[in-house]
């Protein structure tokens, strides 16, 4: 039995969790800064860093208390070292390294994106080869895992991330930040009336593009406003979300046809989107050899439990770091070389 305490602070959530054997969450304390950044319509990095340091010891105490464990009961310290905002990452990284130093525990460096994918372990067992659709505010990519802890990107966004386009369209429609859940809720209650372009639908690859869709929505809204028309925000949200989901679905279908896998994972903040979960569930029914493993709702956003899950993969593979571990804000997976 391996118990890992994990630290995550890459964006605007400060979190510490304790996870057993990579799949059982003993505690997961998350402090979210959402109300603060809502003032500015998005994350302000210096403000985020300041909040992290205000909360780091509180979530640490809380994680130990929830799990009713002491440092002596732990085997390793996992920590997100990238990708993310450098000032935010630093607080979790220094906190984790300090905790490890004080208690003579090994440090396990974790890629935040691997963390999102590893959160699928809280839903069930991952069989290899596996594939993940990783969709968040900063990333949109299809990741192939030929074996455990092997991540290769087969397709990624060439411009905006899917979650980023939600935030930008949300701002345009004057929804509070973050707009993802509001748009999803509205979209499912309304009919899509506008056919927005699904970018790169015919291109011969697995890449995504969302900036064209964003511009189309902006143009549509501006034209309507110039003509003095009343905007139906619900219909617009439904139309926009259909285009996003179509793009994600089309690429995923092609990837699954060309890379048969045993497990398909939906991960990242946008994995909380209900329409995306439903349409992917339907798609995966046409791939009977593949088990669909969407990350459980409560672990789709940033949290340290997922870092504990990915940390366990690294721990087993013998991937450790020293006290001089630094942040890597631009960390990403390698592309699959053909």
């Amino acid at each position: 039995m391996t118990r890992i305490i994990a630290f995550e602070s890459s964006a605007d959530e400060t979190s510490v969790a304790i996870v057993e054997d990579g799949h059982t969450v003993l505690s997961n304390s998350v402090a979210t800064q959402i109300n603060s950044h809502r003032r500015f319509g998005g994350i302000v990095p210096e403000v985020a860093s300041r909040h992290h340091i205000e909360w780091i010891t509180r979530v640490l105490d809380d994680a130990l208390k929830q799990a009713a464990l002491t440092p002596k009961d732990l085997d390793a310290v996992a920590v997100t070292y990238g990708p993310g905002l450098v000032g935010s990452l630093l607080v979790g990284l220094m906190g984790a390294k300090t905790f490890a130093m004080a208690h003579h525990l090994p440090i396990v460096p974790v890629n935040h994106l691997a963390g999102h994918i590893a959160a699928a372990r809280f839903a069930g067992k991952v069989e290899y080869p596996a594939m993940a659709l990783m969709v968040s505010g900063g990333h949109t990519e299809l990741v192939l895992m030929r074996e455990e802890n092997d991540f290769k990107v087969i397709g990624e966004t060439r411009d905006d991330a899917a979650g980023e386009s939600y935030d930008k369209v949300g701002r345009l429609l004057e929804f509070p930040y973050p707009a993802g859940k509001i748009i999803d809720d509205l979209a499912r209650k309304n009919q899509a009336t506008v056919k927005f372009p699904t970018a790169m639908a015919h291109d011969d690859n697995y890449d995504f593009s969302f900036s064209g869709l964003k511009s189309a929505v902006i143009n549509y809204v501006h034209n309507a406003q110039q003509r003095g028309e009343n905007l139906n925000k619900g219909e617009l949200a439904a139309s926009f979300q259909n285009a996003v989901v179509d793009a994600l679905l089309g690429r995923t279908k092609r990837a699954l046809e060309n890379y048969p896998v045993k497990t398909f994972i939906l991960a990242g903040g946008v994995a909380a989107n209900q329409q995306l979960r439903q349409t992917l569930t339907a798609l995966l029914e046409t791939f009977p050899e593949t088990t669909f493993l969407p990350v459980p709702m409560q672990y789709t956003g940033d949290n340290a439990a997922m870092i504990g899950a990915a940390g366990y993969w690294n721990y087993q593979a013998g991937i450790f770091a020293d006290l001089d571990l630094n942040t890597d804000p631009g960390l990403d997976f390698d592309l699959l070389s053909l």
Partner: protein
Amino acid sequence: MLQILMHDFSHSATLYAKIKIMKVLAFDTSNQPLTVTLAEDDQVKYIFTSNVARNHSIQLLSSIQAAMQHENWQFDELDRIVVAQGPGSFTGLRIGVTVAKVLANTIGTDLIGVSSLAILAQQVISHKIVVPLFNARNQNVFAGVYQNGINIKPDEHQSFANLCQWLKSNQQLDDLIFVGDTEPFNDSIQSEFPHAAVLTAEESLPDGKGIIALQKNILPVDDIDTFNPNYLRKTQAELNWLENHPGQDDPNHYVFEVK
């Protein structure tokens, strides 16, 4: 002590508490220099200083561990963690304060914050008025005014011009010593205070001793959780927001734990 013990056993615990040596770990990452100091009470046992432009995030913990190993100290023997709390580089302060908070929290020891400017002033051996300052860009400084170890003007973010004005209206002009990031302000200092002494940043590097001398007179913080860097400046985004939303600041509800 032996005699006292023989005569009156009941006083020995009190006596022991008074003579118990306090093991102190202090560090300063508030600007480019890095210092790590170990002391017993105010007796410095070990100093590590570095002025290489290297990330404190890489260097601080291995420097602390090397210091502890050099003195053969264990973390659970420490009585006090002391950190330069600011002002200074926001990133540097967060690195030092995060380490100090988590270490004090997890080994259950006292935490003490010391002004980074007071540390610089402490190193100047003189009865004159000492003005430690850090460059805050756009002709602004983080600065305080000190004399004989006493803070006579609080550390503040201010324009250099306002600082000069205050010094001129309040102090004897001949008795000033400027320390810290003085280079960008050298011309102004020379013209405003021709008799002032000026130490450059290189000449006023934290030596690891000032922080030890200062900490002994400072009480530990009551609540480690609420201990934060003294940035002495709100972020620009918050300043702009506050200007447009007077009376709407609600700092207790900006961050909350997800249940």
